[in-house]
């Protein structure tokens, strides 16, 4: 069957399922709209949290970032540890207490705990900046996946995706989103692991990719491990070894910490724990969420290392059994004629992959032309008259999207990956849109503009704000700011430096007061944003950066991506100092803290 028809069938069936679930799980009350009526089983909630959390970045980009990292795959372990370790912080420090608090939104907790409308407003602003920057990437992911697999324009793909999200998010609210996400999780995890299992069997003979990662390399008879083989071929071509140690341990430490604290402070993740029936369920649900997330995250490094090895042996066929340069590089004529290499032509058409035969010898030499001049590969290049690396562009996203094609897997696996990438992007977009709409309708409209709004009125307001958020997200997806990649750093940095410390101290330190919390959040916000702007440009406007965005200019080598952890530390220190010299919080707030520390009497969440 034609690949296009297969893709259409797979994507069509999954979309029909999502719409069907949305119709079944319509929200009738604000409690159902914001928190699925607190009736979601912890295992199902864990699955939904997994889909909510694993975005287009996790599904499409992460393995490629690890695989193609110029500093080696090990340095990118920060993503693997950071994006999973945050769940430990959530389970231990936030989820059970916020569930006991029993309200619907993160700004609502901050407003009540710090008895201040200003603190609540500050939290709303942080939440909206964080969630909007995040949603842009999801909408782009939907558009790119559609355009590649369903032969429509990126813009058209975006409209279709937005329409689907509109149907199930606006009508279903948290209830519809949660049950749809359960289905999306199943689709995305099958789509991610099936190609990985095939490839692991091919390269290592191990069924489980996690075992394959530390297994032996089968094509050479199994006398060398997969990772040793990979290190050998990439270093031969002048690249940094895949398992090479980091050159900046402090930065890797802080980057991992920023991602962990940022994860625990992301509002759309936190609100997931408002949906379970009991405090004990909030704890175990975080564990289940991590189980479902780990199914993808422990496979990702295997996908990354195996895809890099497959790519290298495709470019240098001799590398399969001997050294790469013991034979010729792949020839342009082979790429244009051999059916098993047709994927290269397909991806060249999308612009994500580009080759240029610079020295006109009919072969495509892939090597690191920035390697030191006295390295063996550069000497060989000079000797043979190579004019630089001829695989001129290879986008990170290809490592997952083209993986089934590189490994010559059947057409239905390719269709599955298309459906999985869409599931990952749509489920995260829906979760983010819900966080934005509840902040607008519950925290802004009910919380400050019109407190006497009826339940029915608030539900309508929530749906209108959701529609508004979808329109804004679609517009931003169509006209992405050129800085989409950088703003993600801002999202994690802000979540780490503002929301996480305020929530944690609000629970664990009774003495923290309004002044301390607001001062801490402001210092965290300003410090983190300024450090990022100094290197990335003020408000990301190109050319307005004060210092070049290179490691040599960073303070102690700390990159703007890693600064959130420092911002969080400053938030803690400032909040402590300011709270210590100002009046202690009123008695009813201290009683509130006492009450959220004890599971008994949580009941269902209320609007008041």
């Amino acid at each position: 069957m034609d690949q296009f028809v297969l893709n259409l069938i797979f994507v069509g069936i999954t979309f029909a399922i999502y719409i069907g679930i949305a119709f079944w799980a319509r929200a009738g009350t604000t409690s159902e709209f914001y928190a699925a009526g607190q009736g979601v089983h912890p295992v199902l909630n864990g699955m939904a949290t997994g889909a909510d959390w694993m975005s287009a970045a996790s599904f499409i980009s992460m393995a490629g970032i690890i695989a193609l990292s110029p500093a080696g795959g090990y340095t990118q372990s920060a993503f693997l540890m950071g994006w999973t370790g945050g769940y430990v912080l959530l389970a231990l420090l936030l989820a059970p207490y916020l569930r006991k608090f029993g309200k619907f939104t993160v700004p609502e907790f901050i407003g009540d705990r710090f008895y201040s409308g200003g603190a609540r407003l500050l939290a709303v602003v942080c939440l909206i900046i964080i969630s909007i920057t995040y949603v842009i990437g999801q909408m782009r992911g939907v558009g790119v996946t559609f355009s590649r697999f369903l032969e429509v324009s990126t813009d058209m793909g975006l409209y279709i995706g937005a329409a689907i999200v509109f149907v199930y998010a606006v009508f279903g609210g948290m209830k519809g989103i949660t049950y749809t996400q359960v289905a999306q999780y199943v689709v995305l995890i099958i789509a991610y692991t099936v190609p990985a299992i095939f490839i692991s069997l091919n390269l290592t003979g191990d069924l489980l990719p996690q075992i394959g990662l530390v297994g032996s390399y089968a094509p050479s008879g199994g006398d060398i491990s997969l990772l040793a083989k990979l290190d050998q071929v990439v270093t031969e071509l002048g690249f940094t070894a895949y398992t090479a140690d980091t050159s900046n341990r402090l930065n890797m430490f802080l980057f991992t910490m920023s991602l962990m604290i940022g994860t625990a402070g992301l509002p759309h993740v936190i609100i997931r724990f408002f949906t379970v029936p009991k405090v004990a369920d909030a704890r175990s649900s975080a564990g289940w969420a991590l189980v479902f997330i780990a199914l993808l995250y422990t496979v990702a490094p295997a996908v990354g290392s195996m895809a890099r090895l497959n790519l290298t042996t495709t470019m240098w066929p001799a590398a399969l059994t001997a050294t790469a340069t013991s034979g010729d590089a792949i020839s342009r004529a082979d790429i244009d004629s051999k059916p098993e290499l047709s994927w290269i032509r397909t991806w060249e058409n999308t612009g994500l992959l580009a080759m240029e035969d610079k020295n006109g010898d009919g072969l495509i030499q892939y090597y690191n032309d920035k390697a030191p001049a006295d390295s063996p590969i550069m000497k060989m290049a000079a000797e043979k008259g190579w004019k630089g690396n001829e695989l001129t562009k290879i986008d990170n996203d290809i490592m997952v999207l083209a993986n089934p094609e590189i490994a010559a897997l059947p057409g239905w696996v390719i269709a599955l990956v298309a459906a999985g990438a869409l599931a990952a992007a749509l489920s995260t977009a829906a979760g983010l849109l819900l966080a934005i709409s509840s902040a607008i309708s519950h925290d802004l409209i009910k919380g400050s503009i019109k407190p006497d709004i009826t339940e029915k009125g608030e539900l309508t307001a929530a749906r209108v704000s959701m529609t508004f958020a979808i329109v804004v997200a679609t517009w931003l997806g169509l006209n992405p700011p050129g800085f989409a990649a950088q703003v993600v750093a801002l999202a994690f940095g802000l979540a780490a430096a503002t929301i996480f410390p305020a929530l944690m101290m609000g629970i664990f330190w009774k003495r923290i007061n309004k002044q301390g919390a607001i001062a801490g959040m402001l210092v965290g916000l300003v410090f983190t944003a300024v450090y990022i702007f100094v290197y990335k440009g003020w408000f990301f406007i190109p050319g307005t950066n004060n210092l070049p965005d290179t490691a040599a200019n960073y303070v102690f080598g700390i990159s703007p991506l890693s600064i959130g952890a420092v911002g969080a530390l400053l938030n803690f220190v400032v909040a402590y100092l300011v709270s210590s010299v100002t009046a202690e919080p009123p008695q009813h707030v201290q009683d509130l803290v006492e009450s959220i520390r004890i599971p008994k009497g949580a009941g269902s969440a209320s609007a008041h």
Partner: protein
Amino acid sequence: MVEKASSDAYWKANVRIILISLVIWFLCSFGMGIIWRPALMGISVGGADLGFWMAQNGSIYVFIILIFVYTKMMNKLDRDHGVEE
């Protein structure tokens, strides 16, 4: 309403469990995966060194076990102090 003394003891025990869990959380990720990777270079896990494996796979398994053990201990603590739902 739970007695003040009992609720203080409950909270103290809770914080202790959290602190122990966080020490393990730190050691298996930041410790073995980043800070002490060079020192652990000699220990191999399949085709990788221990630090590399902890950073890419091992720490994630520890995180999962940690959350479930914590949940179990907290549920028991809730029952012992009569504060469960």
